[in-house]
């Protein structure tokens, strides 16, 4: 992973994270919108301008790849590079979560 990718994607926006997470399985844009809505109980609703921009940028940077087209919808899937970025981000979020819980425990005791 080169420094440009690191700089652009680590840390990642919430939108970017959910897109990569969903693309562990093949999906088209609207499929991602629906999946994220279900995962977050309707709290996050991705907008098409954001989604289209993110998908084309991620494809250009090699984080995801175009698989095929179905009824005018492009289907994408994560690449190895995308997985590496996602793993880094997951570790970062795990650390955030652990630190938060530690502080919480200390406050209680």
């Amino acid at each position: 992973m080169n420094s440009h990718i690191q700089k652009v994607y680590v840390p990642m926006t919430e939108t970017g994270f959910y897109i990569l997470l969903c693309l562990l399985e093949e999906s088209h844009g609207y499929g991602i919108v629906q999946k994220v809505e279900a995962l977050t109980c309707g709290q996050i609703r991705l907008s098409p301008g954001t989604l289209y921009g993110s998908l084309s940028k991620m494809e250009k940077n090699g984080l995801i790849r175009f698989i095929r087209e179905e009824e005018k919808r492009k289907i994408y899937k994560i690449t190895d590079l995308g997985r590496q970025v996602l793993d880094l981000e997951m570790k970062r979020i795990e650390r955030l979560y652990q630190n938060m819980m530690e502080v919480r425990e200390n406050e209680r005791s």
Partner: protein
Amino acid sequence: MKDRKIKFRYFSIVEWEKEQDFLRREGLNGWHFTKATLLGIYHFEKCEPEDMVYQLDYNPDGIAHKEQYVQMFKDCGWEYVQDYFGYSYFRKPASEMSGNEEIFCDDQSRLEMVKRIFFTRMIPLIAIFFLLIIPSLYTQSTDPSSAGYVLSWASWILFVLYLFVFLILGRQFWKYWKDLSK
């Protein structure tokens, strides 16, 4: 009573928010936007007052892959109206929205759009300025004939106009940039 009208409006390349508000206001007043044509002519037809939300996207990649681009917006409930000077126009009735809906859901993607406008519209202007106007100013100021005199004045006027446009657009870009990158 007329059931069609046109309005002339000029919006600079960084005034998409004003344009969106303008189109929405017309809808609230009972005028449904049908199309925009050259030289800032906006066409409307009479309708029941409607609260229609308009959003403009600037995405050359989307225009290049029109079908897939428009489909994604359609899936999310946005009707595609047309392209106009690099912008794509979308609309959605406010009644079909849950809260305030926009075609962008975070500031980073809003900033990405500002960058796309800047790099595809502003950079060519700046290039013309440095490659054509400044050199012509220089060559014509050294030309002693009367034609050279007139041309040199023309170049100076162009130069001042350009500077003026740069200042205004530059200020608007800067404002967006600052607001969106926090």
